[in-house]
């Protein structure tokens, strides 16, 4: 009897909370839109959302579930599906701005989805996907977490980029002013091209891969364990190059002349690591643990 009363109270409380949230959403002008699509293997999904966050996570196979929260009637969500290809576009209406034109997306997709997302200033988050990812934006923060196996292409002007736990991928990031942070990233190819943004890498340079980090004025910092197996070339035309490691010297090439270059190997030199900057500082750090 007591349990039954408790259950009823809990249910009533949940009902009130749902009503309250619905009321808040209604009062604030938010509109929720739910979309469902059936897809086959390796679907292609494109989301274009100028303002607002786009969060994409792996869900059930053969199904795409989109939840969109529209912040005003100045924006509409256009959708189209052609076989295995889906396009979701936030369509700004006349008078829309960064506030009234904002749409928040929560999207569940099959893990093997090939995903393309564009956002000007909202957060873009992709998680647990193994298809090809292409993310671009102006100021949007880009986050790719626990992905692998596919190509990851990120382009940003000034938004920060965070790549965490990516394996076996072809990873290419280009940034003008946004910092690029890589944590536990490995693959046959990891290519980071930055202008003034910093490049911060923490990992073991695994995968017998090529790791090319280039910047104009941004600093480059790589933190690796003592057991890392790497062939290192590091040079800054005008900045300092420091290393915590005692590298095995390589055959002296023309590029080692001058005080701002570093060439050498560690272990079996399985991966090639190139850290090149015009005027940024470069630091190859030893992981402390």
């Amino acid at each position, binding site marked *: 009897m007591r349990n039954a009363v408790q259950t009823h109270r809990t249910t009533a409380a949940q009902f009130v909370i749902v009503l309250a949230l619905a009321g808040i959403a209604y009062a604030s002008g938010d509109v929720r839109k739910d979309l469902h699509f059936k897809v086959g293997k390796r679907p292609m999904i494109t989301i*274009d959302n*100028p303002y607002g966050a786009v969060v994409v996570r792996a869900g059930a196979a053969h199904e795409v579930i989109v939840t969109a929260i529209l912040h005003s009637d100045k924006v509409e969500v256009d959708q189209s599906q052609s076989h295995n290809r889906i396009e979701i576009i936030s*369509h*700004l*209406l*006349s*008078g*829309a701005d960064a506030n009234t*034109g904002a749409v928040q997306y929560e999207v569940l997709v099959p893990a093997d989805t090939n995903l393309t997302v*564009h956002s*000007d200033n909202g957060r873009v988050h992709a998680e647990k996907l193994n298809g090809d990812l292409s993310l*671009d934006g*102006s100021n949007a923060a880009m986050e790719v977490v626990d992905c692998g196996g596919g190509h990851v292409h990120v*382009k940003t*002007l*000034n938004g920060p980029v965070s790549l965490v736990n990516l394996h076996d991928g072809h990873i290419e990031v*280009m940034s*003008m*002013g946004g910092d690029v942070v890589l944590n536990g990233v490995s693959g046959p190819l990891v290519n980071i*091209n930055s*202008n*003034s943004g910093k490049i911060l890498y923490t990992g073991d340079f695994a995968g017998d891969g090529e790791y*090319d980090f*280039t910047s*104009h*004025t941004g600093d480059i910092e790589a933190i690796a364990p003592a057991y890392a197996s790497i062939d290192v*070339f590091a*040079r800054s*035309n*005008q900045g300092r190059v420091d290393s915590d490691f005692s590298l095995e010297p390589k055959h002296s090439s*023309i*590029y080692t*002349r*001058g005080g*701002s270059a570093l060439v050498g190997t560690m272990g079996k030199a399985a991966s090639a690591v*190139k850290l*090149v900057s*015009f*005027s940024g500082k470069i630091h190859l750090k030893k992981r402390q643990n």
Partner: protein
Amino acid sequence: MNCGEFERVLPEFLEGSHTPEQQSHFESCSACANLLADLELISSEARLLLASDEPRPAVWDALESRLRDEGLIRLPQFVTSKESVSRRWRAAWLVPVAAALAIVAGVKLFHPAGAGDPAPIAKQHVSNPTVAAVKPVSHEDQVLLNTVAARVPAQRARYRADLDSANSFIQDAEQSIKDDPNDIYTQQMLINAYAQKQMLYDLAVDRSEQ
């Protein structure tokens, strides 16, 4: 000569160049003579239309202002679906420009300035990479900035700063290649610098197509 053959040479005949055979057909065929008279009348009326008074610019300004007041036309702010096609074509010029940037990067790579010079290699270039506060922009960059400014003025300032950064990177890399034409890492740096500039153009095109 028959009427069909005469019609094919009508344009030249109107301009006054004709053969005796054409002249003979014109004089003997009333249908072709009437057709020619009609064409000459239309031509002369068209010249009169061209000479008619064009309303002064102030008239157009007043008309535009009136239509805007009545809400019949609006200043473009955000692109609607109806405008998207024309906006897309207006921005289409940026695509070949972006492609040209990639080509220039390739040319620079395979024909670096000063290639083959006996100058010492691995000389470190020393220049100030700091972006100058006010720098002239190229015509292409200016058009890009205007395209961006048509959306939100604040974006123009940001693109301008990013363009300056990309151009500064290109300039520094080019100078370094002059100092050391055989430096493959600087060559790659130059390619990366051009790739950054291409990204700016690409993103501007994408945004313009919305």
